[in-house]
């Protein structure tokens, strides 16, 4: 990408585009000047996808609350999908697996410990027997954890229903929810929401809950109710969290609805409402989404059926 604030590359410009650039020179110059203060589109989309770490995510969120250009871009891009991999990219992405598979077969030396020398064989039998005995013993002591051997990124989420702070990823959702409504009201709402979530970002959940509660009286939107419910969870007010998260889940759409369902199941479990938690988790486990694997793992941990 070329430095922003410049016109488009001259070699890339078509004849009719040249005329367009000349005719709309002034408004386009204003647009470029404005965009020079915006995050790059890739950074914006990363923030919307929830993969931008703090404090960059907070900086982009604040900008998004004030910038209609970025809100429009984020909203419109949400309806598109990037192009898929080319044939060569597919082959290259698969190559490491092929290499690893070939390494396992082409270098039997790697499996040399399997060579059947009597002592090794006896040791192997002993190890297997002890492991089996331990496995059976553990099975009797505790409910099975089918996903205990999953890789690192998931295993952090597996044991039960951990309470993890969700990132502030509401600007895109807010832009979508408030699309078409009066601009002034939307701007004020976004400003109030940013103010209410400032203490949330620094883990001051009590102050964040107080501000969100006040905002919920005038704007009981899905985002406000969701973050209010999460704050109450962190404050140990589990029954209150259940109420807010139920309302948030009803009001929310898309990814936020799934986030609300996940935290609602956490709230149910912490409030001792096991059956309701299981019902929520079963719904999440059935549908594809960011919480599916966690929900299925949580059901296993609770000893409840997945369906």
């Amino acid at each position, binding site marked *: 990408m070329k430095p*922003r604030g410049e016109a488009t590359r001259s070699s890339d410009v078509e004849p009719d585009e040249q005329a367009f650039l000349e005719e709309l020179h002034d408004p386009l110059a204003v647009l470029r000047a404005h965009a020079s203060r915006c995050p790059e589109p890739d*950074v914006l989309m990363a923030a919307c996808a929830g993969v931008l770490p703090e404090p960059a995510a907070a900086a982009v969120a604040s900008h998004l609350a004030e910038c209609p*250009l970025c809100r429009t871009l984020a909203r419109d891009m949400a309806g598109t999908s990037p192009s898929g991999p080319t044939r060569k990219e597919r082959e290259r992405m698969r190559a490491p697996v092929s290499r690893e598979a070939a390494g396992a077969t082409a270098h039997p030396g790697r499996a040399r410990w399997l060579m059947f020398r009597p002592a090794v064989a006896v040791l192997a039998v002993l190890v297997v027997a002890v492991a089996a005995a331990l496995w059976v013993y553990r099975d009797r002591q505790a409910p099975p954890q089918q996903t205990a051997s999953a890789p690192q990124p998931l295993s952090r989420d597996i044991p039960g229903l951990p309470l993890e702070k969700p990132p502030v990823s509401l600007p895109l959702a807010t832009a979508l929810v408030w699309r078409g409504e009066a601009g002034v009201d939307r701007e004020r709402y976004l400003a109030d929401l940013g103010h209410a979530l400032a203490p949330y970002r620094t883990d001051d959940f009590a102050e964040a809950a107080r501000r969100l509660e006040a905002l919920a009286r005038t704007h009981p939107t899905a985002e406000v109710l969701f973050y209010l419910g999460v704050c109450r969870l962190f404050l140990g007010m589990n029954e209150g969290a259940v109420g807010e998260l139920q309302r948030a889940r009803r009001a929310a759409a898309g990814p936020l609805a799934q986030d609300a369902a996940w935290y609602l199941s956490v709230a149910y479990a912490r409030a001792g409402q096991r059956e309701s938690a299981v019902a929520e988790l079963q719904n999440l486990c059935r549908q594809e989404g960011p919480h599916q694997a966690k929900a299925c793992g949580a059901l296993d941990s609770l000893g409840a059926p997945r369906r």
Partner: protein
Amino acid sequence: MWISGKTELSAFTADVGVYMMSGFERLYRKHVDAVFRYTLRCVGRREIAEEITSEAFLELYRHLDNVDESQLPAWLLTVAKHRAVDYWRRQQVERRYRETLPADPVVCQSNDKVGLFDNESLKPIHRVCLILRYAHGMDRTEIAQRIGLTADQVKSRLQYARRLLREQFRNHARRGAK
């Protein structure tokens, strides 16, 4: 199965390898598009998306026995998402972003910066092309990769959008002159 010698052992491990690859191959073909697209949306650069997608599938191959197929593609997307977060952490976006800000930022109070593209005949895809091209200075190939079109399709959408905007601009100027 008893394995009595080196030759048989090689054959055995080769069989296991082939068996695992055939199962993996099917999963790879089924999910690689979705994982790549998701990752590309998260990081914006094809070579990075390629690297992360490749790592996610390598993880899957290594844990093939422990991952239930019903957990896919969510399992792969979770791995890719963690890798994308790591990528952005390494980029130190915060510092870069702040460096681009002017000393005295002007807070935009209205919708006028998008007003240029306010035209009912413009669809979201046209607006995306216009903003990426004329606000952020991307070329057609860069735009195409981010929104799943070919460079020619981007070209035709931009041509259509420019025609509409020029008409709108002229009408506006005529009304102003009267």
